[in-house]
């Protein structure tokens, strides 16, 4: 790290503008989008393999997650009445445009599927709609990482290779956790949750080792505290999920507690990543020092990783 003495700024003011995205709107969306995406895929496969309880849990979670997500996104807009402008164009260089075009059909399909699940009307169409939502689900869980990374925010942009896997793991852990509420049919969901927790922990650890100075934003301050709590909850939830696989007197209770821990961990991970970005945007050091190092390396003729 470059000593502070060599780091200069304009009255310590941030160089980039911190995002105006609000808490809890955006972290909630990141978390629920993950739950909904994995739940829809789980529901579709539960449907195909004859697991009606797991199907029902997944379909309802997908519709709930999508509905609240849309609400949070609209609420976060500076001009909420113009939310339909999101579908005015399709702009492939805007992750928010791409995401809107994923979320809109996902929400419609997941909503229709859940409506059929609750009313029993048109189960055949629901199977088709559910398959459609399930196919879109995985994209819904990871495009949000691009949404954050495609900014000048150092802690997000520098992590663009790792964030999609952090979010993928976080989504699997939380979506799998919700599926663990399916009682006797919870087996696949439990496996999803445990695998997701492992992916989330591994990807977060890789992220913090690879992204240079920006990693400090993930380790310190509010973001650091939230992410440490997230890790603890995820580990505890994963251990509980493994233990709940064994038949026993308290299996159901353990499943519920583990599911809650996994979801708390996932939500905290999203919030922690969000806060790390905000902290790195507010402090000009995160912008200036790596750019200075890049310039110095280029001046010395050292090959610089073109994507860092």
């Amino acid at each position, binding site marked *: 790290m470059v000593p502070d003495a060599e780091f200069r700024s304009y009255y310590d003011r941030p160089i980039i503008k911190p995002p105006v995205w609000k808490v809890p709107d955006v972290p909630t969306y990141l978390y629920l989008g993950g739950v909904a995406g994995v739940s829809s895929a789980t529901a579709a496969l539960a449907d195909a393999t004859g697991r009606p309880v797991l199907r029902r849990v997944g379909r309802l979670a997908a519709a709930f997650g999508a509905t609240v997500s849309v609400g949070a996104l609209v609420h976060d807009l500076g001009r909420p009445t113009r939310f339909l402008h999101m579908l005015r164009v399709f702009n492939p*260089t805007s992750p928010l445009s791409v995401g809107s075009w994923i979320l809109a059909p996902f929400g419609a399909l997941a909503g229709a599927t859940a409506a059929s699940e609750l009313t029993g009307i048109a189960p055949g169409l629901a199977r088709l709609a559910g398959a459609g939502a399930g196919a879109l689900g995985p994209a819904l869980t990871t495009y949000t990482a691009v949404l954050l990374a495609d900014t000048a925010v150092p802690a997000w942009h520098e992590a663009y290779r790792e964030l999609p896997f952090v979010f993928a793991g976080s989504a699997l852990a939380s979506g799998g956790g919700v599926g663990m509420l399916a009682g006797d049919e919870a087996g696949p969901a439990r496996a999803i949750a445990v695998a997701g927790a492992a992916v989330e922990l591994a990807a977060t650890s890789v992220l913090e080792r690879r992204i240079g100075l920006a990693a400090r934003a993930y380790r310190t301050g509010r973001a650091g505290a939230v992410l440490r709590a997230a890790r603890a909850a995820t580990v505890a939830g994963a251990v509980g999920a493994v233990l709940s696989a064994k038949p026993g007197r308290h299996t159901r209770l353990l499943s519920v507690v583990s599911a809650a821990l996994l979801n708390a961990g996932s939500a905290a991970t999203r919030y922690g990543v969000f806060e790390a970005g905000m902290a790195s945007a507010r402090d000009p050091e995160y912008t200036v020092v790596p*750019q200075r190092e890049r310039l110095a390396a280029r001046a010395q003729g050292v090959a610089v990783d073109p994507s860092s």
Partner: protein
Amino acid sequence: MTNRLSGPLPDPSADAGYPADHPERVGFFTDTSICIGCKACEVACKEWNALPSEEAGVPGDLTGMSYDNTGGLGASTWRHVAFVEQTVPARKSPQVDLGMPAATLPGAGPDGSGDATEVRWLMSSDVCKHCTHAACLDVCPTGALIRSEHGTVVVQNDICNGCGYCIPACPYGVIDQRPGDGGAFKCTMCQDRLGAGLMPACATACPTESIQFGPLDELRARAAERVDALHLAGVTDARLYGHDPNDGVGGDGAFFLLLDEPEVYGLPPDPVVTTRDLPSMWRHAGAAAVAVAGVVAAAFLGARR
């Protein structure tokens, strides 16, 4: 695809789809070595564009940042004059020898050496850079941000829904959301004046021609001459910023002559348009999505009934 996202791009307007007879690309060359900090540009910009006062902060509040009580560019501040007071070793100014007895600064040796110091006052009028590869425009989901026929970047206020994506996308921290309104706002390079054949208000008001407006190619040539002249005159600190089409944003439509490192003025030393890495971001997100699908499928395949 690569050149659409980063690297040199001779004609951004043509790239955006304007016909070949579109007007030439125009820009600003802000020569901070002759800025006197009068803030005429700030005032003219506010007046012409009918910008409200910044809602944040109490009117009349002093920042303690030299003469800068504006702070930075924002939704309602499209020109911002930065003031930096630096204490530097006293230098003997290059001057004409009139053969008269001359006074030296207290503490200065006969040749200007010694421990005497003086204040160097840097002033610089900041503005939207109108990047060749503009991240704000790239990430806008509604199409509110557009490339104009003049090669500039403009927000269409009637389209913007206030999603705020452009704000953290900008590597310079230029564009911002206006509280109470919700929309994103920034410099338009006086799009209305350009259409009427006029210069932008700031450049018109600038009394020292620190802010020069014109065809970008001409400005770049003029800036290269100016920095050479300053170097010859002994101002070795002079350097251009944002003029290079090979930089991280493909060159700025508004570039600068600075007398110190960019970060001293609140500018990023090596800005890069974030969408340069977007193809790789989508590849990583795609791989992660496939992994999600794979984990879910494997969980069902591996499950015993």
